[in-house]
């Protein structure tokens, strides 16, 4: 951890896809044990920003420091970095040819070098925690979307990450399955996990985060504590966005 208590420090990050600037001069800090929610319309750059933090995308300009280590200078060991950052995707991306338990055990076995037995006991612990111990030997396609997403979270947690990135993890779920996933994330937040969460679930974002960050067209228009952003947004764009969200009944 860096001396100033920041676990992630993003400074002036710009990312382009061809001529399109998807992130423009983004700066954002995440405290250790802090939870930051990224809100904003689809295409505003939330997912890209998350992907830059674990180097699934390379930034074009600016620096990102994670856990005291600058990751954007091209010298960092990408695999070592990813070992301490868990990411969960909108589409779960479980490995369909492996059972639930095998999904959770793969990285601890092959990356951390845990024995079969150690990995198994870790997986069983996590599956118990997410309430899916009885599904350990099922294949992912036998599970509901909510269950698959919980397994994806367990799979990331099995690497004992110091930071979790959640990329719209409830967006592909039926409404009645959303809460089981969000409850798990709440529990993670309470346990002190540092997280950056891209989400459209505004009530959840308000409840769980220390900081809300509103992205609009690749720019951070406004960031601050949830009460400030949701109750007293200072930027007109933020107010517009929140008004649309309320209109859509998502808050």
């Amino acid at each position, binding site marked *: 951890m860096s001396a100033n208590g920041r676990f992630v420090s993003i400074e002036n990050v710009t990312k382009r896809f061809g001529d399109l600037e998807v992130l423009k001069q983004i700066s954002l800090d995440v405290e250790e044990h802090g939870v930051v929610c990224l809100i904003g319309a689809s295409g505003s750059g939330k997912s890209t920003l998350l992907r830059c933090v674990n180097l699934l995308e390379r930034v074009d300009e600016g620096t990102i420091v994670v856990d005291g280590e600058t990751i954007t200078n091209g010298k960092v060991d990408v695999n070592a970095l*990813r070992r301490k950052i868990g990411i969960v995707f909108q589409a779960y991306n*479980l490995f369909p*040819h492996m059972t639930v338990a095998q999904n959770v055990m793969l990285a601890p076995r092959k990356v951390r070098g845990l024995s079969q037995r150690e990995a198994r006991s870790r997986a069983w612990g996590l599956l118990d925690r997410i309430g899916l111990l009885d599904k350990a030997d099922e294949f992912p396609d036998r599970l509901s979307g909510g269950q698959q997403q919980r397994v994806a979270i367990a*799979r990331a947690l099995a690497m004992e990450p110091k930071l979790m990135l959640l990329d719209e993890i409830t967006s592909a779920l039926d409404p009645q399955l959303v809460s089981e996933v969000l409850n798990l994330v709440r529990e993670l937040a309470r346990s002190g996990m540092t997280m950056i969460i891209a989400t459209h679930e505004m009530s959840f974002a308000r409840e769980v985060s220390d900081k809300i960050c509103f992205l609009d067209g690749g720019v951070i228009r406004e960031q601050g504590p949830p009460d400030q952003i949701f109750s007293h947004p200072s930027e007109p764009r933020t107010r517009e966005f929140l008004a649309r969200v309320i209109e859509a009944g998502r808050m």
Partner: protein
Amino acid sequence: MHRVLHSFANPFYFRQSLPDIWSGFTINVQMMLIAEVLVLVLALVLAIVRGLPGRGAKPFRGLAIVYTDFFRGTPLTLVAFAFILGIPGLDYPGISHYSNEVYGIAALTVVYTAYVTEVYRAGIESVHGSQRMAARSLGLSYGHTMRYVVLPQAIRRVVPPLLNDFIGLQKDTAIIGAIGVIEAAAQANNFASSYFNFTGFLVAAVFFIYLTIPLARYTDHIIAERERRERATAT
């Protein structure tokens, strides 16, 4: 019609030719099995090489592409001639003193490896990028991602086309017979020359069909099974 039957499907000659053609056919099976195992392994290696990322791997990717382009475009008959007639003539110690069967297996392997490389490659490319992304973001290396996440899914998907190529390989062992290995087709031809009767060809055909039909049915079964499964998960 009677003359056709007499010439191509005569019960007497059927029995008469059976033992020799059967012993020839065991050579077909032998060539096919050995070549198939070599092909499955070599083609997988080539397919992996072709997909290697980065600038450093560029020459290797290039070589793999040249190889598949060359041998996919060259008729097996030519390769078999070149190997069976050409290699012994080189008189190199170590490689020039094997039996025709060995050169035949080599020719089959070299040509079919080019086809099967493409089959594997199609399979590898059919695995969605999000699978690699998920594996890499768990910290798995490129090699581990291929081995534990991409290849198991890719290979499962290409089993039906692989079995089709397997059937093709099995039949093409007869081409080797035309060039100098006394397998089933060559035995049938010998028989035809000696007795002026072509029933031996039918016998050889029956053997080949006897082997390919179960494979074809098995392939159908796998495809049907998969479709059933996919329908079940789509709902």
